[in-house]
């Protein structure tokens, strides 16, 4: 099961990458592999943009628009604040309706 083709924003700065493999270790979808001692995005469409790789990269070599891909939260943000990034879903509060978490 893969999501939309070629939309994930993950990118690796090869100058900063030391090939330590930490990103490979934390990725739950096997998006990254080590090739020629550098991290390489081998399955971009599988990327959840969870940000685990970037967060655990001690060399800040991974960039992307990481966050939670939750339509409930983003529709909420868009309608309420005009910005999908500002939305929260029910997992954040008490109102409780969608079961996304």
């Amino acid at each position, binding site marked *: 099961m893969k*999501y939309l083709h070629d939309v994930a924003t993950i990118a690796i700065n090869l100058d900063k990458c030391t090939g330590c493999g930490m990103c490979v270790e934390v990725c739950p979808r096997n998006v990254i592999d080590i090739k020629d001692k550098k991290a390489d995005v081998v399955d971009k469409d599988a990327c959840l943009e969870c940000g685990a790789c970037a967060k655990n990269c001690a060399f800040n070599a991974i960039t992307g628009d990481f966050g939670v891909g939750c339509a409930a939260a983003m529709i909420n943000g868009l309608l309420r604040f005009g910005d999908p990034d500002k939305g929260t879903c029910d997992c954040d509060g008490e109102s*409780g309706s969608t079961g996304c978490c």
Partner: protein
Amino acid sequence: MQLMPANPDEEKTSCCCCGPKVKKTVSSWNFRDYFGAIFCRVSNHYRMRYQVSPGLFSLGSPTQEAPVFVTANYKLSFDHLRKGLGALNAWILVLDTKGINVWCAAGKGTFGVDELIRRIDSEKLAEKVSHKNLIVPQLGAPGIAAHEVKKKTGFSVIYGPIRSRDIQTFIIQNNTITPAMKTITFTLPERAVLAPLEVVAIAKKSFVPLLVVALAMGLQKHGIMFHRMATLTLPILIALTAGIFAGCVLHPLLLPFLLVRSFALQGLFLGLFASACFHFSGLFSNVSVFGQAAAYVLITALSSYLAFNFTGSTPIANKSGVKKELKIAVPVYIVSGAATIILLVLYKIFQEGLL
């Protein structure tokens, strides 16, 4: 970070002499745990309150060498961890994630470096164990920067398996993880278990609008007539149920077999399919053309909306993709909603012979 000297006098009482009291737990589940595990999959109200108090727990009789497992204070996360640990003697460090599971809390940052450091400190973990390893579930990685934790506390983060049932194998194999243990899955049972909560949530949200529609449908010159209300509302109730079924039940179950990758489109196609089934079965043959149109627009748009909302529950969708879908989907939903209302008005007018 200072290491507590191994003082034999203190060792005996090391679990109680310093820092807050260590809470005891067991690996087995009792009736209430089983009930809770089921009920928090049905009621969101219950689920948001299904919590354990944060802090350090001892499972069995852990020594200073026993492994430390980190988890969230969503009770189901905690319960799965202790169950997975089985007969192991271990420490469980529960972070305060406001009752949210590890993956979602990591995404929001509550299962994060700051909270982890705070708990290591407040629970005086360095005095309870002689080693410097923390086993953090891999799905906590979006919130935890292993190198920062190491730098600030001296503790090394070891990412453990995603599923608690793999923990014992992981420990036996000397903390080594297999590719299967670190790969997220979305199997049929994993998808099916999410459906009830989604159905309950949208059913609750639909109640008031449905009531308003029913009252409007029953409206006559001399008041509200129940028989009229029931006859005219029934097709709408059926359409609503069908839309929910397509978007919240069929969609998660059939997810791997749907040919398009866009969640909104997946739901849209399932809604169209359900509408076609109704149309060709002749179930709505006695309903006026406006009523039928309202029903089909409602089924299709609702199914699409619900399937799209499911993105947040899946280990498939990503933020950039949802943003892209949003740009088309939201205007379509607004137009569909408006169209449904207009068609329902026309349906009522036509039924009353006013047209």
